[in-house]
């Protein structure tokens, strides 16, 4: 079913949601001028394009409490964290909805539910916002992620109003009849054309076969290991877990998982200070191959939705699209032997 919401009624809609759920997450500028998702409290929204930072923070936070441990005489009480706060996320772009489906594959379907992730996922109603124009470095059309999926409502901006497509019951339930009117208008076409194009034909296998391609070294030479790429990425999920004592208590502690980055040496450092991936070349390759080869192999999909954030965020403009295309165009001649050749 399709509806129309007048733009002048949009703030009223957000207020209604806020009243009903307490927490509404919207795209806006932060104090540094970067765009990200934050709790709605009447601030001006950023609706021009996708945000600099993704909505990952609300599903895979940078620091997430997993367990608390409490010592009781000689025994411990182990408690698992649960996040049951209901919320509505407004303004996630089609690529962002695909990023969530991609993470669902690992954290819900692979081994059964990882409750830290699935709690947040289940308790969040998703209102996606269609892109009317291609963003700076995006290549969603190559990745097949330019149309939203797995959302509850889709908003499409159309001059003075939003065209709204309801996808689920919980989405439809949000549509207050005083604000949303049925429409029989045809859905506005939302065909976008990305400037960036990635050839994904046989991509995962070909990149892996070109493990020793010279492009890894050439491109990584200017890398600063700043981790902006992995931080900005909506699907980078790799983490490290840490225990911390509750301050001032010798008997209570908590376990957190914190997002880590494959771009750092510490990511593969074991005791004795041995680092398994010491060079930037190896670490950049790990990032790109995890995206296009490894995740595909295990979970049947790319760990990249073509949002282009990593390219925009990189201070030295390293682009995984350029790297991948170079290899696609000029693979190593004796690719089959490339891995063995190195040893």
């Amino acid at each position, binding site marked *: 079913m399709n509806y129309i919401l007048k733009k002048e009624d949009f703030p009223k809609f957000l207020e209604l949601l806020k009243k009903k759920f307490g927490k509404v997450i919207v795209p806006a500028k932060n104090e540094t001028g970067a765009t990200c998702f934050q709790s709605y409290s009447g601030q001006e929204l950023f609706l021009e394009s996708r945000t600099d930072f993704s909505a990952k923070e609300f599903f895979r936070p940078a620091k997430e409490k997993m367990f608390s441990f409490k010592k009781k005489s000689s025994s411990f009480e182990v408690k698992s964290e649960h996040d049951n706060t209901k919320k509505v996320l407004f303004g996630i772009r089609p690529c962002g909805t695909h990023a969530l489906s991609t993470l669902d594959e690992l954290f819900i379907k692979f081994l059964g539910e*990882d*409750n830290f992730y699935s709690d947040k996922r289940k308790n969040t109603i998703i209102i996606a916002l269609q892109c009317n124009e291609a963003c700076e470095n995006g290549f969603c059309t190559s990745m097949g992620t330019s149309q939203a999926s797995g959302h509850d409502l889709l908003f499409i901006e159309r001059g003075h109003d939003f065209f709204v497509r309801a996808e689920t019951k919980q989405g439809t339930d949000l549509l207050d009849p005083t604000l949303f009117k049925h429409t029989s208008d045809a859905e506005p076409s939302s065909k976008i054309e990305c400037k960036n194009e990635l050839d994904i034909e046989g991509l995962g296998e070909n990149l892996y076969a070109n493990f020793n391609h010279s492009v890894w070294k050439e491109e990584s030479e200017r890398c600063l290991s700043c981790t902006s790429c992995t931080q900005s990425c909506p699907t980078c999920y790799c983490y490290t*877990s840490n*225990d911390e004592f509750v301050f001032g208590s010798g008997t209570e*502690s908590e376990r957190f998982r914190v997002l880590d980055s494959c771009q750092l040496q510490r990511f593969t450092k074991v005791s004795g200070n041995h680092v398994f991936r010491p060079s930037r070349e*190896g670490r950049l390759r*790990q990032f790109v191959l*995890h995206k296009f080869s490894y995740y595909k192999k*295990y979970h049947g999909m790319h760990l990249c939705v073509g949002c282009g954030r990593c390219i925009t965020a990189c201070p030295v403009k390293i682009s995984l699209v350029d790297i991948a295309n170079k290899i696609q165009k000029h693979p190593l001649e004796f690719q089959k032997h490339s*891995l063995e050749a190195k040893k």
Partner: protein
Amino acid sequence: MITPEKPLLAEIISISQDTSDTKTFEVGFVDKKLQKKFSFMPGQFMMISVFGFGEFPISISSSPYKTNSIKFTIVNVGNVTNAMHKLKKGEQIGLRGPFGTGFPLQKFRKKNILFVSGGCGLAPLRSAIYAVQEKKSEFGKISVLFGCKTPENVLFNEDMNQWQKENFNVLSTVDYPNKNWKGNTGVVTGLFKQVNFSPENTIVMICGPSVMIHFSLIELRKKGFRNEQMFASLERLMQCGVGYCSHCNIGNKYSCIDGPVFNAKDLEKLPVKEN
């Protein structure tokens, strides 16, 4: 709802000091029903939580046929293992697992077995050696090679004596001998010439530092061993044990779920030594 990551409580039943920096902890789940159901394959590992300090992967070093308790042989090398070493009998830890692939022993029936270990790499192999010992009649000749830095680092003396009594060919070597050392000196690959085995019909299981694995495979290939006959257990940084954290990626494999035990055929294709 399942949480693959929730540690379950276990209690330390006994502790033995193996060397100056290595202890073996015998533990059992607090929930007796869990312990009763517990089973594992030699080569598999578990994640131990020392509450407040963290979690680390550790191989099971006890016999798969004696699962009333579980043994872990732990070297004190860092923060969490140090906290572990301070724990006493009766104290509690958290356990997750067992995880990973083990040595597929059922496929090795009727074969000669060569165990090659370096340092605390003998810990995961001990579990496999116990298993072979238990079903001795089903296997051919058994050799256990062990190398470590100094005579003080030699692990599991009692076990080695017992294995010798069982007619296993037990050979050890150290890098730096002292006056009382009667065994061999030099790297573990140097022991290969003392083993009277033919490459046919022999299975090799290797565990130890990565250089040791690397050179063992090279030497054994020279002796005519095929990749299919050789298995090695690899070490990588691990935080989850279940394919969630990606620290242990080696090329297109995860050592926590595809390993830590790999066949040498797979190892040859993997970028084990990345730059």
